[in-house]
């Protein structure tokens, strides 16, 4: 359990660093409410980006992006709404992104960013 959490945490750090490199401003990380958790809330221009990070240590159980289900997307949409409600912000647009982090043996971890997952 420990290892798994640590890998997930490390993946989120990598993802955040990647997004900053892409010109995103990170607003908040690991925001929780009773609906669930948003991994990263960021801003790109006047677009609010709710970002889910998926980390995997291999492709044996499918690619990290494939692990996003319809149910998860629905949750993310509702979380985005709740986050806006609590923060009283009026962004120009809202988007849900997914960042996949893959730690493959022997190679540097790879980051794959999907804009507008839903």
């Amino acid at each position: 359990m420990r290892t798994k959490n640590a890998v997930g945490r490390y993946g989120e750090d990598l993802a955040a660093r990647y997004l900053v490199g892409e010109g995103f401003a990170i607003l908040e990380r690991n925001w929780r409410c009773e609906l669930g958790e948003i991994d990263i809330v960021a801003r790109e221009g006047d677009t609010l980006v709710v970002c889910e990070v998926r980390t995997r240590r291999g492709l044996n159980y499918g690619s990290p992006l494939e692990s996003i289900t319809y149910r998860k997307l629905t949750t993310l949409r509702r979380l985005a709404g709740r986050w806006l409600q609590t923060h009283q912000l009026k962004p120009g647009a809202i988007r849900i992104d997914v960042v996949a982090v893959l730690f493959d043996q022997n190679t540097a971890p790879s980051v794959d960013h999907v804009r507008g997952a839903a």
Partner: protein
Amino acid sequence: MPLAQTWSVALVGLEGHLVEVEADIAQGLPKTTLIGLPDASLSEARDRVRAAVVNSGERFPDRKVTIGLSPATLPKTGSHYDVAIALALLTAAGVIEARWLRQTAIIGELGLDGRIREVRGALAMTLAAARSSFERIVVPELNAGEARLVPGIEVYGMRSLRQVLAMLRGTEIPDEAPPRAEPRLLSESLTRVPEVDLDDVIGQREGRRAIEAAAAGGHHLFLHGPPGSGKTMLAERLAGLMPDLSTDDSLEVSAVHSLAGLLTNDAELVVRPPFIAPHHTASLSSLVGGGSGMPRPGAISCAHRGVLFIDEAPEMHPLTLDTLRQPLESGYIEVHRSAAVAKFPARFMLVLAANPCPCGLSGTNQGICTCTPQILTRYRQRISGPIKDRLDIQRQILPAARSAADGETPESTAVVAERVKAARDRQVVRYRGTGWILNSEVPGPVLRREHPLDTASHKLLEDLYSAGRLTARGFDRVVRLAWTLADLEGIGTPTIDLTHQAFQLRTGEPLTPLADARSLKGPTT
């Protein structure tokens, strides 16, 4: 490049339509959609292509992938789009170059491990690609033989997706285990002309005459006689008497056989007239063609330019047998299904064989027939009038024990085939410029006007007609047959003796010289 296209071929009947296969890779979570009216086997292409791409050592794009097959309104069926889909996808993903693929048609089914498996109808598909002036076509290695029969297009026979990718990248083409041919359907054995010779047939002077005339003029044939008398034996030797197919016919017949999955792996053109013998329990759609969605050719199309032999014809369902009427007239069959209307060629020589009655003893000296009159009537009614009417030659085949006394040494297939060839050549010369090549194809009025019989022969038939022994339609049929007999003799016009023999062949009477048959009274035909 997030968008790419390749080309493949859809078949409607024997007609090929070029299909553009587009792949679009868009932002979004991984999901693959296949659009453009795919049927169930084609929808599964998504999963086959994914597995094949991954198992060929490539990455399947982790994005929203849309595969479009256009024209979108044409229903598409079958698994032969797999390779085209995989290559469009990998081009869109930027893995391979698009340039070479622009002038290339691609067909082939993918195995999950990336093997390219053989498909049906490769010959017709290659023809379509060549006609649309594609420079080359990629086909499964097992189909390369038949595809190479098409002139004017370069054929690449490939064993696996890995090999295709290596060729596109210009790297060394990896060696793969040779593909194993699919086990052939049982029906394949029926398409081979049995290797039998006419000199195996002892006696049967009349039977031999009948099949020789049938082969020479393309006349449909009805053989009846007790079990074991040699009906099947004669029918099997009929295709052997016919000359090789012309180049055009050969390509057409091969295309039908390719679609029906009957071509062998060492794919050569079908050059001999096919011999197809469906069982009398054959269903309607297996005979005329059919299948759900996209129609496939049936037995009558496989017998195109050859012989369709139905043994125990009265045992076949009368409705099934009656469906042969239209193709017998037109030489093709149109099969209508929800997805499309397919037209297949079906110009075959029909040979029906039957027992004289259900017990098989009627009219023989081998025992006493136990069938009641009602049973006999019902049995004989099972071959309908319109079908019987199209059978130019009727012949009773009696067991050799009775007719072997003829005492002649039987002629071999080669000798008779020579005569048949000469007779056919005479017909081609006579009907040059008309589009007909066989006596059996020429309409009665044309024959009467352009190639009339001599007065004596005509008088004979007129007398038979007035005596009620010949119907108006039967009249024309006898004239055609008389011409065939004359062509076999190599003489200019039918003599009265040949005309009389044609009449006997048509009505099923014993072949006796004209002098013995002065009485014109007898049953009507």
